[in-house]
Structures are given as structure tokens and as C-alpha cells.
């Protein structure tokens, strides 16, 4: 009599049950976005893995083989395609991948990294639920960020393909410039509501015609 769920049924049930940290703002993100000028969307459920390892050690080399390299200095992002690794500290990294890469959804990212680290010093922690991802893009995305970010975001200094951990609206985030006009922001889940509303507020003026 026992009903056994097939793996795909389990996956679908998991998918249906979860709620992303800024899900309730999805409509506001759509209506608050100004296409072509600045748009804000949430990219929910990305797989994220916190890795601590000495990148020059053997374990570091094995982990790098899974992730496609480990960044050497602040700002660097390694990896190509869907799996990328952000630099958090000299021995601390964050691997970001699409949700399908997560072990519970058919992928093997966390398991592969754990295997690669083995029994050596370091850690591999599944942090997928720790942060959510906002994508802020458009010609005025930088102007929105400059209202609160103390870093120099001018393209001369902050180049596409750079990720730094810093503060936006006084909360700690990872800020990743994925292309010239596009930024990915990783706030902790509990800050997603606040930061989402803050960014919407900051975007509001660009919906109106510019005052000469």
C-alpha cells in the first residue's frame, strides 16, 4: 500500500513547496521596472556552495577542477558558463550555479565538491538557501547602485566580470557585475525584502521623463 514517490515526483513536490525570499515582490519588480532603462528581477533558488580551502593546496587544486578554477584575488570570478566561483576571502569562495546543479534536483555540485575536498582541511557547505539573487540591469543600473554603494562603480574601475562583497543600503551583499549594464546582487534571504523595496524606490525616478 505504501506509495513510493518517484524521484521526479519528489523533485516536483520540493519545487512546488518552496518560496523564494522575494517572491511576494515579483509583481512589484515587474511594474517597477522600466524596460531599457533599469529592470529588476529575482533569480530564485540558485545553487550556492560555500567553499573554504587553501587554493594552493592539493585539495584546492581538486576543488578548482570541479569549479573550473578558484579566484586568486578580490574581485575575480572564475568559471565559464553556468558554474562560477566568486572570491569571498583568501581561502573562502562561493560557487554559484543554476538550481539544476543542486543535488536535490538531479545535479551533483555539492557532492562533487565534497568529494573533491575529501578529508583535507577546509569545508564545503550548501548555502543555496542563504542568499537570493537580484538582477539589476539596464542603462541606469549603475545610477541606481550609486545611490547607496560607496565603491567606485565607474566602468573604468569596476569592470564587467568583477564581484565584490560590499554594502548596499547598509546591508552586506555580494555585488557581481556580469556585463556592462547588468549586475547580480546577492543579499541574504532575510534582507531580500528590504533590499528589493529599497531598489524599487531608487528606480522609481527613472520611470518619469528626465527633468532637463
Amino acid at each position, binding site marked *: 500500500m505504501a506509495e513510493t514517490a518517484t524521484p521526479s515526483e519528489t523533485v516536483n513536490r520540493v519545487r512546488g513547496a518552496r518560496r523564494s525570499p522575494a517572491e511576494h515582490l515579483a509583481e512589484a519588480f515587474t511594474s517597477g521596472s522600466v524596460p531599457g532603462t533599469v529592470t529588476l528581477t529575482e533569480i530564485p533558488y540558485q545553487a550556492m556552495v560555500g567553499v573554504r580551502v587553501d587554493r594552493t593546496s592539493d585539495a584546492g587544486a581538486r576543488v578548482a577542477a570541479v569549479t573550473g578554477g578558484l579566484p586568486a584575488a578580490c574581485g575575480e570570478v572564475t568559471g565559464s558558463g553556468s558554474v562560477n566561483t566568486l572570491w569571498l*576571502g583568501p581561502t573562502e569562495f562561493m560557487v554559484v550555479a543554476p538550481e539544476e546543479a543542486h543535488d536535490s534536483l538531479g545535479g551533483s555540485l555539492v557532492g562533487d565538491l565534497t568529494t573533491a575536498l575529501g578529508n583535507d582541511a577546509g569545508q564545503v557547505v550548501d548555502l543555496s538557501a542563504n542568499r537570493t539573487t537580484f538582477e539589476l540591469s539596464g542603462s541606469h543600473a549603475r545610477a541606481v547602485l550609486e545611490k547607496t554603494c560607496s565603491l567606485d562603480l565607474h566602468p573604468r574601475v569596476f569592470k564587467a566580470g568583477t564581484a565584490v562583497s560590499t*554594502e548596499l543600503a547598509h546591508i*552586506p551583499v555580494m555585488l557581481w557585475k556580469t556585463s556592462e549594464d547588468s549586475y547580480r546582487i546577492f543579499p541574504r534571504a532575510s534582507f531580500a525584502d528590504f533590499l528589493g523595496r529599497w531598489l524599487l524606490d531608487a528606480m522609481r525616478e527613472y520611470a518619469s521623463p528626465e527633468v532637463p
Partner: protein
Amino acid sequence: MLLISCPNCGPRDETEFHYGGQAHIAYPENPNDLSDREWAEYLFYRENTKGTFAERWVHSTGCRQWFNMLRDTVSYEIHSIYAMGQSRPDITASSPKAEPEKPGEFTQSGDYGQAGDPGLAPGTATAPTSSEGV
């Protein structure tokens, strides 16, 4: 607002950092041998320097690494930033401009100021350290 140059991340706002108090306080080599007074002095007694002060900071919203800083508590000028475990640099030799513009404003640029009786000031306590620096 101080602009602090993190050794890993470059110049960042002071709000990204947290202060860690006086630097170079060695953990007593044999804590069990200390009297209650000596232990209390190790734990709680700190310099209150007017002038150049060696202190610890952590880049808490960045790389989360600790480092030492030589900062002027009067002018807030940052003289030097150096790694944990390194000894306090002699700023009088390396940068003459670190000297005060107004003579008499403060005097100590190498010594630790009002270190009291020997053995009472935390910086001058017992010799080697195991807790500091990595």
C-alpha cells in the same frame, strides 16, 4: 568616515570594518601562573593613547580577515596597515611626514605612551605569544 585600505580588498568605507581594540597583546605564556590581578590586567587593561596607536581591525563585510593598523587617535591619520603577526612598524623611520605638524600636540611616535609599572601594561607582559596572528 575613515577610508581604510584593506590588505586584501583595497580602500573601503569604515562601515565595512569592525574595530578589534589594541594590537600586540600577547597571550600569557603560562596563564595558570598569573595572579588574579595580572590576569585581569591582561584581559581588561588597555592603553588609552593620545597619538599613534596600534590597533586591530577586521574587514567584516568584505574578506573577513583581520589586520593591524597604526592610526593616530588625534588626527585619525592612518600611518600603516600591516598583517597580523607582524611587529609594529617604526613609522618615524619610514615616513617622516607622520610626525605631528604641531609640536607638543602629542609626543609618542614610537613608545606606547603611559605604560605604567612594568608588568602591568598588557603590551609589556610576558614574552611570546600564541594567540596572535596567522
